[in-house]
């Protein structure tokens, strides 16, 4: 009978989709397990010094990843500090304030930033950003503005540096933050906007008092998604950060990141101990990135569901 046939094909479809869907979490589990197993020997040998050690000396079997960890975290934090306010401002401008045609154009241009390959950002960094930092920005900050008194802005201006990596990352994650922020702002119900407007708020007061507070959790989530991308970005960072495996003492100093370390050393990894130590670094990176992403999804999701039942 037809109904039985439909029942059977339904079941097949269900099994098929279930299988396809379960591949994704399974993949994450498998990758995590492989990384943990591969990293295990290094964890047993070196223990916490993997995280806290500052020496990374392969011939002497010293595997302290702290400089790379610090480099990843600080350059990502710097990128976030720059891209988050700009991204949210872009979203507010495009969605709420600009005339429709201008808003759409600006939005499309910012989206386009996400289409530029990572290696192109790296090349732009090397040929445009680094000379500019070396010749203009760093001397300006350090000498002209007198910030050189502070350790963060002192030292010789080479170009390749934490600062360069933070800037490139900021531009790279900007479109993601702006895109999520725009989606979150668009999900704010019309009733919230009209509440403020009907009381005599200007457009800007409406954004400030009704839209942004309602969207806050989602905006934070969008920023965290950007952070997730910044943490794992490899190619562009490797090209501009300077690849110096030592604790950076200044934003101007060349530094390292976990992703850059892995990219640079995996091909020439010498011996099991080295590979295992690199795997441990990969594990740390994976853990931080998964954590940040999970948190971000929860926050973005909370805005969507909280307002789903209110008619727009």
């Amino acid at each position, binding site marked *: 009978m037809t109904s039985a046939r439909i029942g059977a094909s339904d079941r097949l479809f269900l099994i098929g989709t279930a299988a396809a869907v379960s591949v994704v979490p399974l993949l994450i589990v498998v990758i995590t397990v492989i990384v943990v197993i591969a990293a295990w020997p290094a964890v047993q040998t070196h223990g916490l010094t993997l995280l806290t050690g500052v020496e990374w000396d392969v011939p002497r079997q010293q595997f302290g990843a702290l400089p790379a960890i610090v480099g990843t975290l600080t350059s990502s934090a710097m990128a976030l500090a720059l891209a988050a306010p700009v991204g949210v401002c872009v979203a507010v401008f495009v969605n709420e304030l600009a005339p429709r045609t201008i808003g759409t154009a600006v939005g499309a241009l910012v989206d386009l930033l996400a289409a530029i390959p990572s290696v192109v950002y790296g090349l732009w960094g090397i040929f445009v950003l680094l000379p500019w930092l070396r010749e203009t920005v760093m001397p300006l900050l350090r000498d002209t503005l007198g910030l050189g008194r502070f350790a963060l802005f002192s030292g010789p201006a080479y170009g390749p540096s934490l600062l360069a990596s933070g800037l490139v990352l900021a531009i790279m994650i900007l479109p993601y933050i702006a895109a999520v922020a725009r989606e979150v702002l668009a999900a704010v119900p019309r009733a*919230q906007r*009209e*509440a403020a*407007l*009907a*009381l005599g708020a200007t457009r800007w*007061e409406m954004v400030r*008092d009704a839209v942004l507070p*309602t969207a806050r959790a989602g905006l934070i989530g969008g920023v965290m998604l950007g952070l997730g991308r910044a943490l794992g970005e490899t190619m562009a960072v490797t090209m501009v950060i300077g690849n110096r495996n030592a604790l950076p003492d200044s934003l101007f100093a060349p530094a390292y990141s976990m992703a850059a370390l892995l990219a640079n050393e995996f091909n020439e990894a010498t011996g099991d101990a080295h590979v295992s130590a690199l795997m441990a670094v990969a594990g740390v990176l994976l853990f931080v990135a998964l954590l940040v992403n999970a948190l971000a999804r929860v926050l973005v999701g909370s805005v969507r569901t909280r307002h789903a039942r209110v008619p727009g």
Partner: protein
Amino acid sequence: MIVTTAGALRFTDFSVWYGARQALHTVTIAIEPGIALALIGPSGCGKSTLLRACNRMTELVPGTRHTGTVHLDDGEIHAREVDVRALRQRVGMVFQQSNPLPRSIFENVAYGPRLNGVPDGSELTDRVTEALRRAAIWDEVADRLDDPALALSGGQQQRLCIARALANDPEVLLLDEPASALDPGATQRIEELLYDLRGSVTIVIVTHNLQQAARVSDRTAFLYDGRLVEVGETSALFTRPREAQTEAFITGRFG
């Protein structure tokens, strides 16, 4: 207190279009100060449009335009020199779905006065207290003004939204089906408070509930297909409608 006098509204040959679609056809109606006017009519007949024209909320929809005039007291509300924000403070609005801002009870009510530059202090506190009293919610929130407004029940939130509009000391209060999402008890409280507000503020209320219209309003206007069919004393309109369409609607034969 600072209660200003109720305002008069006068629509003259007023039409509204959403893009190519005409939602109101040359509506002419005078709403005397201090009365409560109910707007009734079948879904899509233009009740919300007429209501939202009173504080120029219609123009938030891209592509709307209008012809004709609307006067609040002696001023034409679409005149070039009119400040829309000031207009919206003189003409308060309450929506179908209560929509408190994500802040405290006190801050919701203080929002309008704050936009007007009223600083922290006794004047602000007085205005908030007075508004909460007029909206018949003071007793329920007096000891928790700093709680988030979203923690209130639906009926309380709606009265809070009325209080919030009253804190601007408006001349006109617009309500678009303010009780349609509430249970009978909460609805009754809203109706009582609207009854008490009469005289001090002009009330225009859209409702699908004809008994409600009969209970809270002095006059009722029946709209059909964007046209004002009939307006008159509520008791007269419900008992002796002049137009056949009105009679058909209030006896439930359509709409």
